[in-house]
């Protein structure tokens, strides 16, 4: 399955090579890796809704596969406590050409940010706080409705 929720870290090279293993019709691999930002944050803890999370990510993946010509998609999201600098999320797309791979990866991240049931809690010197949803993420996801596939 190309959707995984896990506590442990992952390796971008391994994931990219898994997408293209045993085939030679892929010209473009795009990956997004999200990292935990530091600043006043000493630790980030990811909570999720087991069961619904997998369903939501698989639905997002299906939408991308319907919309673009892709040879593969990988979505990995870590849960549990994570230190600043740690990898937290990974999305990768494989396609013949780069435009589809880039667009689909952005689409996956935009929908993951707004539709997948994860919640971030930050630990700081002043205590803990739940991260607020960002309005810019709602705007990012809205543009995909206005903007049917432009390039392939």
């Amino acid at each position: 399955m190309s959707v995984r929720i896990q506590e442990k870290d992952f390796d971008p090279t391994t994931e990219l090579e898994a997408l293209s293993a045993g085939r030679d019709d892929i010209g473009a691999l795009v990956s997004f890796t999200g990292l935990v930002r530091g600043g006043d944050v000493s630790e980030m803890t990811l909570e999720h809704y087991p069961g619904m999370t997998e369903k939501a990510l698989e639905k997002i993946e299906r939408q991308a596969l319907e919309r673009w010509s892709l040879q593969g998609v990988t979505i990995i999201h870590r849960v549990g406590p994570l230190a600043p600098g740690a990898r937290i999320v990974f999305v990768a797309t494989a396609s013949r050409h780069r435009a589809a791979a880039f667009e689909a990866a952005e689409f996956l991240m935009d929908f993951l940010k707004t539709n997948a049931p994860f919640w971030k809690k930050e630990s700081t010197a002043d205590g803990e706080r739940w991260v607020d949803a960002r309005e810019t993420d709602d705007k990012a996801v809205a543009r995909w409705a206005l903007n049917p596939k432009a390039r392939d």
Partner: protein
Amino acid sequence: MKLLYFAWLRERIGTGSEEVTPPEGVDTVESLIDWLKQKDPRYEAAFAETVAIRVAIDQEQADFDAPIAGAREIALFPPVTGG
């Protein structure tokens, strides 16, 4: 039916999961929340701002006016912040 709470909603209510049997007449998500608020001040505080609450019925996103009849699992949570 099973109710699930996540993130700060879970913390304010004090549990992540509970079994409830709403009385007749409690037939939508909205009326379910109203019923919970009358049961205990913890719910009153947790659901004070329902604009900041999202709902999923049997693991599918739903609206506040969605019917809850036959639902096995209703989850209530703040807007998601993953990625």
